[in-house]
């Protein structure tokens, strides 16, 4: 028998979905800024494996020659990104939702099992909880990364008035690299997140939209038997 169960609180759903356009604007405007000095690459010596970014990327996206525009959006929308993130953290702490989200010692072992399962290397069933260990680690990490982006961003933006922070992060150029790496981290997170949402199916995604999921429970006959 099917039953509707509450899963994600309304506040968390709003914070989550509001973050989508805000983070998009931050990444987009960040790319407009990065273009002006696009020196990062993966490689060694003269050999470059990946350059961020090839000309084709800029041609395709229309990112280029828009530094001033990028800075304006970035330094205005950072506040909305920060406020939404702070509101989420305060809400999860105050409501007790953090208990589902923060990993425990057991989460790391469980995350490994989830990974093996998802890669088809293990037939063990997934834990049936709101968030499994892998999710707890991922969803807590992404919050720490958001905080990291704000901190590294502040160290770049106000590198003299918050000079102690810039020094702590290894200097101005180091803070810029860290800020960029965190952005790559979001892109990686996004790729895995979307894959997992597709794999989990509509009932799971619908819960993030409506707040409710449909679950299979024991039928009324058996239930009565249990109750009597």
């Amino acid at each position, binding site marked *: 028998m099917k039953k509707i169960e509450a899963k994600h609180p309304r506040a968390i759903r709003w914070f989550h979905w509001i973050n989508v*356009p805000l983070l998009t604007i931050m990444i987009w405007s960040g790319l407009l800024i990065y273009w002006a000095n696009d020196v990062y690459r993966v490689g060694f010596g003269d050999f470059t494996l990946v350059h961020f970014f090839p000309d084709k990327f800029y041609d395709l996206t229309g990112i280029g020659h828009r530094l001033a525009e990028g800075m304006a959006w970035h330094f205005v929308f950072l506040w909305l990104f920060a406020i939404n993130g702070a509101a989420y953290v305060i809400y999860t702490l105050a409501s007790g939702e953090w208990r589902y989200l923060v990993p425990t010692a057991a989460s790391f072992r469980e995350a490994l099992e989830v990974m093996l399962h998802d890669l088809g290397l293990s037939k063990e069933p997934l834990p049936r909880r709101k968030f499994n260990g892998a999710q707890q680690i991922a969803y807590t990490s992404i919050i720490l990364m958001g905080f990291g982006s704000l901190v590294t961003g502040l160290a770049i933006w*106000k590198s003299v008035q918050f000079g102690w922070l810039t020094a702590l992060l290894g200097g101005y150029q180091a803070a810029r690299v860290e800020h960029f790496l965190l952005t790559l981290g979001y892109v990686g997170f996004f790729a895995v997140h979307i894959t997992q949402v597709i794999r989990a199916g509509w009932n799971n995604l619908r819960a993030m939209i409506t707040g409710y999921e449909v679950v299979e429970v024991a039928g*009324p006959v058996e239930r009565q038997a249990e109750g009597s």
Partner: protein
Amino acid sequence: MTEESANAQVRSEIARKTRRSFLAGGVATLAGLSCFEWMRSRRADEDEPWPLRIGLRADEQLSRDYFRPSRLARTFPAAAVETGRPNGDIGLGDDPDPDWKLNFGEQALSLADILALPKTVMITELKCIEGWSRVIQWGGARFSDFLAKFNDEPLDGGSYVSLETPDGEYYVGLDMESAMHPQTLLCYEMNGRPLEPQHGAPLRLVTPVKYGIKNIKRIGTIEFQRSRPRDYWAERGYDWYAGF
């Protein structure tokens, strides 16, 4: 109630909830997109939609409130010094005038007047707004020392400094506290040698509390204003404050 009809009820209930959520989500998405489109298409105030300008000015006010002249930009050991990377020659069109004078109010000062001021040498990082930076050893006179010697105008926190190249092609504005910062120099020496023309000879501004765009080369005129002076790159869409 049979299990079949109970399940049907669940299906219709979740369908109702889904419709409601999509309606709310759709309205929110449209509102968000409209906001974005509205912002993007507003009348330009110095080449930036005015809502973004208001945001940048708010950032500027907060930055100025938080600013303390005692917080110094990082200084580096001599071994960290790099060669310069000249970027931007606006206002440097002609060869430097051998009869160059610094126009400051009624006064026409010579380089000798600036050289006579106490000399400050510092190794700081010049940060270009494009994202790169260079560690350079600068030599020059503190702007505050320059004012102590040559200025007789009353100044306060509502004062601004305007600096322009001799030909007026390039110009920047500075808030008073950034101008008075102990690391803001009228600079005539770079990496131990007299300033080269491409770096702003004979006299340029160096201030590690601002992006490179504010570090104007070849200063021709300095004056005080009671409102934010015009600024070359601010007129082209950049933040007027541009300060660290």
